[in-house]
């Protein structure tokens, strides 16, 4: 076998080598670009507050990952006056929930979930809520909004408290448009909030809100698991750190609308802070004009508002209660913005 190499073969080999080297450098640079940023593992970084393990959402009967975009529209029919009647069926029941991995909590629920279903209707519609108390304590449904006193769901007015095994209904015209809420008004009041008897009540304007690409609902709640009148864990939609472990996906430049309600008991104040972004804020959602353009808002008990925002850059963005204690005990999450 000859070891001689012709000039042509030499140049061919050199050219191939140069090509291969250029390709390798290009691939390496590409790789450098891809991995220039540190890999992101939401909820799995070392040295950050979180809980151990996973909650069994199937056993709980609800999953915050789907709950965030779930709205209950009820059934519609038309009254003889031509007004739309929207009917919801709600059942209060006792239920043991796994509110943090391995941690069982004797909750009171509307329709087996905490928060209760996000009821949604339009301003001017007649709303009827058929309510059954399948729990072991007296309960009611007290709606925020404008309605006759007998429909207020408080003791001493209308049907008052609904005893275990009893049923009633609440009927009123939905007004004003905005983001409202409902909760049980039995006594002691705090137990209703602590154990989970509350939910979101959304009344759209007659002509609807301007179209957006993505609507979400988040309820800030706290859990006093040992009933010492202090919250031990906090969450968006009940499960602490859920949205930190499983980021909610959004699209780049898409318009997002977030219905945000504070239902914490034992805390005089909470707040919401969006990282890396600003939002238009509509307090109680009762105006079509935002009150401010900001990245942080304060919320007293039962205070709520609508946030509208879109993301300019892809990546992971935190959202959380600004109070460190609440965030580090679960009121924290991530938006994953994709192209």
């Amino acid at each position: 076998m000859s070891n001689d190499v012709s000039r042509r073969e030499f140049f061919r080999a050199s050219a191939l080598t140069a090509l291969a080297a250029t390709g390798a450098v290009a691939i390496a640079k590409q790789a450098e670009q891809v991995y220039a940023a540190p890999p992101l593992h939401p909820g799995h970084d070392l040295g950050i507050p979180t809980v151990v393990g996973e909650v069994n959402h199937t056993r709980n009967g609800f999953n915050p990952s789907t709950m965030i975009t779930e709205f209950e529209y009820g059934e519609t029919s038309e009254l003889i006056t031509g007004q739309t009647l929207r009917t919801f069926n709600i059942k209060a029941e006792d239920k043991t929930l796994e509110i943090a991995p391995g941690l069982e909590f004797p909750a009171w629920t509307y329709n087996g979930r905490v928060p209760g279903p996000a009821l949604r209707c339009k301003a001017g519609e007649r709303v009827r809520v058929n309510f059954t108390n399948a729990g072991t304590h007296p309960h009611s449904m007290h709606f925020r909004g404008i309605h006759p006193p007998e429909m207020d769901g408080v003791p001493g007015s209308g049907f008052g408290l609904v005893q275990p095994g009893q049923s009633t209904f609440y009927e009123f015209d939905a007004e004003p448009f905005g983001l409202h809420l409902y909760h049980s008004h039995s006594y002691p009041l705090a137990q209703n909030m602590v154990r989970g008897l509350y939910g979101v009540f959304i009344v759209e304007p007659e002509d609807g809100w301007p179209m957006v690409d993505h609507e979400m609902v988040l309820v800030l709640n706290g859990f006093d698991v040992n009933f010492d009148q202090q919250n031990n864990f906090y969450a968006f939609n009940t499960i602490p750190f859920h949205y930190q472990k499983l980021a909610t996906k959004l699209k780049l430049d898409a318009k997002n609308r977030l219905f945000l309600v504070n239902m914490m008991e034992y805390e005089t104040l909470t707040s919401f802070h969006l990282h890396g972004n600003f939002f238009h804020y509509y307090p109680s959602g009762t105006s079509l004009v935002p009150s401010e353009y900001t990245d942080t808002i304060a919320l007293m008990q039962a205070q709520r508002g609508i946030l509208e925002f879109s993301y300019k850059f892809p990546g992971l963005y935190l959202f959380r209660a600004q109070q460190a204690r609440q965030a580090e005990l679960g009121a924290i999450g991530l938006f994953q913005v994709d192209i």
Partner: protein
Amino acid sequence: MTTSSPSLLSRLVGIGVPLIILGGLIAWLIISPPQLRLFSTAATEQLDIEQVILQPGRFELVVRNTGAESLSIAQVTINDAAWISLVLPKTTIDPLTRATIQLDDYEWIEGQTYQIIIYTTTANTFVVDIPDARVTPQLTQPNLLTLLLSGFLIGMLPLYVGLSWWPMLRQLYLPSWLIWVGVAIGLIFGRGVDLLPLVPHFVRHIGALYQAWGLVIIGLVFALGMLYRRASQGGDDTSQDRFLQAYRVVIALGLLGFGEGLILGQVMGSQVSAAPLWLQSPLWIVGLLILNASKGLILALILSDLRPMWVQWILFGFIAGFPLMLGIVLGAFPMAMPLLILLTGAAIGAFIWVNVELLWLARTESDNAPYWGQIAVGVTIGLILTWLVNLAVTIV
């Protein structure tokens, strides 16, 4: 009671029949329907925190289930932040068994206060307070040496320092000698005042399961009984009796030192307890070196009429001083807490005994008519000295 001797059979029957009846009653109660268990209550979860170990970036809790049922650890928070925990060997802890809860990657800051809350699956909470976060000494070779050195400095050395007053004490007249007896009582009483308040803390620490106060009392009564038995063997009149008395005091001082060492070792090795101020001072060893010289002084007082051989000097110092070294080392381990509590009880008994023995000595030396005024002056001086040393150590 009778003076006639019963037969073996009647003795056995006399002992056995009540035992058989008792056994039958117990068996009936165990197999009886639940309605008959009138006094049973719902079992509550109990978790004792036996030790808290702090290392850079890590908390480690040694816990023991002291309840009647198994319990499972669900979550742990540190200063109002949920934190990843690793429970070894498993999250479910059976009754009377231990587990270790590891909390990693938490950058705690020295000197700050931390509160760790352990949540069980049934939402019971167990709180661990760490008042002053510091790296926990690990019982590796150098640290074991540190513990032994500490024990030597505050246990053995002061003994011999105190004994060096012996030549001076021999030359004193009775009234002056009694003042020194009083000083010794005051000093030893001051040591007790410093350490006794820590005992209830440790008693709470080991939980109700071990009936810790019962253990303390058993230890105390045992020590007093043992020392009394030894005391009753001699009349304290002759030189030999005086030596016997010296040995009793030496043993009592050793027991006292052992209990003292256990408590100090617990405080040094564990972050659970709130260390007293004087022990938080970097000069606490200096303070104890000074105050524990009182034990040597007590020995010197007992021996002031005697001429011990040099072997006896060494032996006295060793028996009275070494247990403190041993106690410090043992106390720093999360081991056999019931035994430690039992020995602490014995130390309390020894503490009482030493004081009684000193007063007895003063009485016999004074022909049963001691100068109580001199003794009172001495006790006051001893207490003031203790107070001043603790104050100086704390301030510095």
